[in-house]
């Protein structure tokens, strides 16, 4: 006659309770959702686990947008999103080469030939820049 002693599990102290459950081998049906609570109650925790690795920093994206606006001579009130394609802004392949050269100068990086052909949107440019800056920092 095994009675499930779930009532004996104390919710006040989460961590010790979970450990004691594991050592006892009692599989309590309680699942501790730690992800939710860490966001709420521990704002100082670095959320590096939750960062999406393909996203670039906003200031990098903004710099890219400024350079694209200047190169293509767009007015200041045209809104550029990270997903804007260069071709939809009226840039042909020559403009794209110029934009990539400007980005190389601005961020002091060196884009090789294959990568430069694949840049079609603002987000792709920002991601590539971040990757190259990181590689450069690691090599230094």
């Amino acid at each position: 006659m095994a009675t499930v002693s779930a009532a004996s599990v104390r919710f006040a102290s989460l961590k010790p309770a979970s450990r004691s459950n594991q050592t006892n081998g009692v599989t309590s049906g309680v699942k501790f959702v730690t992800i939710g609570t860490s966001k709420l109650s521990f704002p100082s925790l670095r959320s590096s686990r939750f960062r999406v690795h393909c996203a670039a920093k906003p200031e990098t994206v903004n710099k890219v947008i400024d350079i694209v606006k200047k190169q293509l001579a767009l007015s200041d009130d045209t809104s550029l999103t990270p997903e804007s394609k260069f071709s939809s802004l009226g840039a042909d392949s020559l403009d794209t080469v110029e934009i990539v050269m400007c980005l190389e100068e601005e961020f002091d990086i060196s884009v090789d030939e294959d990568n430069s052909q694949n840049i079609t949107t603002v987000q792709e440019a920002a991601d590539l820049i971040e990757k190259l800056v990181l590689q450069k920092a690691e090599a230094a």
Partner: protein
Amino acid sequence: MAVASVPLRAEVLSLLRSLLKTARKFGDYNIREYARRRAVDGFRENKELLDPSAIAAAFAEGTSQLEVAKRQASVYTLYAPSAKSVMEIIIIHFGNTGRVVMIATA
């Protein structure tokens, strides 16, 4: 005389990149800016060419200009001027916004 082959799109863009990279190496502001401008204008001017022999001829001319630029970039480093051009000082100070800056001199 060997028949020049029609360059691929990627080769043309690669030539432009090489020209712009070589232009960066010039120490003199005027020459550097001219090289950039001329490269971009030259490519834009010939953008609509359809005749394969004309395209090949333009590409060959671009390649020879690239050789000239590379040679001159290394020659100019031997005779680098000690002072910067005033335009460069203005751009470094005020930024390259493309707007005209009025400077008052006493």
